[in-house]
């Protein structure tokens, strides 16, 4: 019984993470060796949580080595569980109590201007990601995780979904392709992910497999929340089948295009101007609109060039996209500012909102603007547009008072 399970990262540049080695033994009790840069202030807490987890997995005789760089509880728990499961066969899951704020649902047509990718195995980047206020945070299990780390990343992503503060961002996970992706879902769906991103979709089947597994897992766990799907098309085949992908399932809320892989598939190179992907982008926009879902653009990879990003976002909005991916927190603001409603959009939203308020005041069940009836989702969207306009500094927070003054005059 001298097998050792290890998980986590150590070494220079590693922060907010912990490397653990777990070696079950036949005698000797719990032997925990903690090396930590925060040992003076958190050594006791680290030891207590470690003991609790070892007892939970019924390990009575075990050597544990920890090299800690300031990992918070959910990270330590994920690393320990991943290491333990390499050497102990068990179906148990060690779960910290889930944050209440992480049990909220999102709507199919919520704004999705920005979604920030976070490597699924890098806790350092997770803790503060939400404070940059992206619309969505994607815990990425696919390309951003090294093949050898795919399994341990699942525990970290699962725990992050439960215990990371998202600060209002939609909780998204990008799963792996194929079978591995379906397995990933077990770590994602029962922990209240709002949206699953499905990479490299080439047809309806790629979406349906995931949709079915999601429903199975919801049923198994006696859960009813909506788990939205965002298929990503990243190949010539995927682009050609874009409509089938977009319309595959009622849970599909958005469809994205991944241009790095797509341009490679075409045998060309990606440029800032994007001429080579014009067809694909238009195709995705058209297919998504035809299916009644949101078309979402690819990421922009030069994180140092904010001006080029802004140009890219403007082109993207002009093509009809509703949002795009971000790979650096500083991109979020630029994406929002350039996708944010412009003056005519804001004026329209204000009119709808005022009509709604008037109807409400008169006790009318139906809102109309001129001769047009307005559906509740449209009102909701108008409210969000106004909020966005305020948040992006395009509308004064006291606009309503000013409107009233105008009316009085």
């Amino acid at each position, binding site marked *: 019984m001298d097998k050792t399970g290890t998980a986590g990262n150590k070494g220079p540049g590693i*922060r*907010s993470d912990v490397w653990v080695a777990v070696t079950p033994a036949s005698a000797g009790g719990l032997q925990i060796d903690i090396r930590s*840069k*925060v040992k*003076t*202030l*958190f*050594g*006791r*807490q680290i030891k207590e949580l470690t003991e609790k987890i070892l007892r939970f997995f019924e390990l009575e005789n075990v050597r544990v080595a920890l090299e800690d*760089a*300031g*990992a*918070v*509880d959910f990270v330590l728990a994920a690393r320990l569980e991943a290491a333990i499961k390499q050497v102990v066969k068990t179906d148990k899951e060690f779960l910290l109590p889930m944050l209440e704020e992480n049990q909220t649902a999102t709507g199919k047509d919520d704004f999705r201007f920005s979604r920030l990718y976070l490597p699924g195995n890098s806790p350092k980047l997770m*803790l*503060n990601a939400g*404070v*940059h206020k992206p619309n969505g945070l994607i815990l990425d299990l696919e390309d951003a995780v090294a093949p050898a780390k795919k399994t341990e990343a699942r525990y970290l992503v699962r725990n992050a979904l439960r215990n990371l*503060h998202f600060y209002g961002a939609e909780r998204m996970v990008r799963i792996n392709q194929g079978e591995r992706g379906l397995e990933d879902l077990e770590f994602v769906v029962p922990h209240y992910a709002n949206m699953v991103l499905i990479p490299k979709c080439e047809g309806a089947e790629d979406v349906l497999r995931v949709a079915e597994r999601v429903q199975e897992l919801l049923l198994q766990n006696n859960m009813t929340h909506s788990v939205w799907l965002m298929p990503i098309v990243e190949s010539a085949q995927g682009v050609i089948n874009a409509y089938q992908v977009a319309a595959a399932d009622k849970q599909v809320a958005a469809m994205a295009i991944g241009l790095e892989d797509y341009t490679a598939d075409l045998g060309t190179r990606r440029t800032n101007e994007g001429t080579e992907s014009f067809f694909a982008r238009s195709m995705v926009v058209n297919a998504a609109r035809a299916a009644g879902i949101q078309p979402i653009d690819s990421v922009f990879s030069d994180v140092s060039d904010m001006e080029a990003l802004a140009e890219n976002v403007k082109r993207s909005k002009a093509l009809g996209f509703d949002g795009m991916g971000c790979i*650096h*927190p*500083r991109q979020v603001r630029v994406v929002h500012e350039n996708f944010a409603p412009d003056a005519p959009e804001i004026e329209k939203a204000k009119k709808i909102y005022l009509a709604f308020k008037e109807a409400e005041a008169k006790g009318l069940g139906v809102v109309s603007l001129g001769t047009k009836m307005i559906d509740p989702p449209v009102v909701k969207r108008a409210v969000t547009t106004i909020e966005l306009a*305020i948040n992006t500094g395009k509308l004064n*927070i006291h606009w309503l008072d000013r409107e009233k003054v105008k009316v009085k005059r």
Partner: protein
Amino acid sequence: MKKYDEVVKNAAGRLVPTILNGEEHIPFKGVGKYKPAGRKFGPRIASCADYPEDGNKVLGSLKEALVKAGLRDGMTISTHHHFRNGDLVANQIFDIAHEMGIKNLRWFPSASFPCHEHLIPYLEDGTIQRIEGSMNGALGRFCSEGKMAGLGILRSHGGRYQAVQDGEVKIDIAVIAAPTADPFGNANGVNGTAACGLLGFALADSQYADKVIVVTDNLVPFPAVPWQIQGNYVDYVVKVDQVGIAEKIISGTTKITKSPDRLLIAEMTAQFCEATGLIYDGFSYQAGAGGTALSIGNYFGDILRKNNWKARFIRAGSNKYPVEMLEEGLVEYILDGQTFDLDGVRSMRENPNHVWTSPFTSYNYHGKGNFASLVDIVVLGATEVDVNFNANVVTHSDGYLLHGIGGWQNTLFGKTTILPIPLFRDRIPVIRDEVTTLCAPGEMIDVIVSERGIAINPLRQDLIEKAKNSGLPIKTIHELKEEAEAICGVPDKPKFGDEIVAVIKWVDGTVLDSVHKVLK
């Protein structure tokens, strides 16, 4: 001699000794409460008859100069830190003292750097009895673990000037390393291969020390101008091959931060200053050379440009970023306390609006005013802040000495002091119930800006009022503390021994807090 004696509770509620290294000191009485009496320290009167008429004070070696200056047991030797981690002179002084078998010296630097780890064997063998000045890295560990024979005394830059001026610290021999000097002893920092800008930290030493030795590797014929240090104060001049390592004098770390979290904090700081009207045409600010402070300067620049405003002056440790603002015309003057890169040195040499200052003009609390209190916005770092806005800048949360006080305490007198800090570092929350070491009474700190919200000191109702409709995330300091603890957990307190290893002085020379021995 006992390290310290007679511990009392001071006006900040901290237990501090009143007898430090055998000498009586006054406990902190409150900000502006202690009123000194008497006259300044009077240095020895010299006569031209004792100095060469041809003005040539050059001696053959540093050792010869130290011997002529009368180096003996128990003396106080001072140095400055303008060469930062590239200093080659301080270590040599104590190499010589050690070789001569001299004991019980007090080293009185304006700051120490990692390169001075070299001195640890001398602290162990009694060559050096104690350091009065900042202690970082290995020296900080040495002192924190109670290994130093004497009690450490940490002072701000202004407090150091005050201590010398008031005669609290009598310097026997000041050794002033200079990038350029003439045989008479005039010296400056703007020319020479070790150019460091200015020599302001050595001003008090030159004025008040019993003997003054200028050491240079760039000896020029009289006159060396500008004479930032005046030869009329200088006893001996020594020419050596090298006084400092240029690339270590120039600090490579002073770049605008790329960290998205720090940029966010910097941006929020600038937004706060704009929203509350702290920035206006003709305003002034102090910004450090850290990555976050530099990006705040950048955002200030954007605001000035947008409004077609100018800042009247920047109080700086300068480098290329404030220099660019000066040259663009966004600011009229840089009042510089230490220069961090070659752009700063060049600008100081060439631009009359880039002014070299000293702790006398900028920080000395026992003067007829100083310009620290004229600065509109002061941006500072801190290792910890507590729920009463008290702040710590010298010790890490585990109790080890980590930073010097520098000009930090002195700049607190600016009109609005803002600490832009992350809510936690490596799981360690920055906002605590009580700071480990008190360096600033809470009344001196006005605003905390973190990535998760901004807390305003309740004493600043004016700012609270102005920030109300700013749309910025204004929270209480308790809310910020709870938010960090929800993420990190609640930290334990470090365990300290009873023994006091160092004290923190306030700007007026009173004793503000004690640093206790760390138990490993």
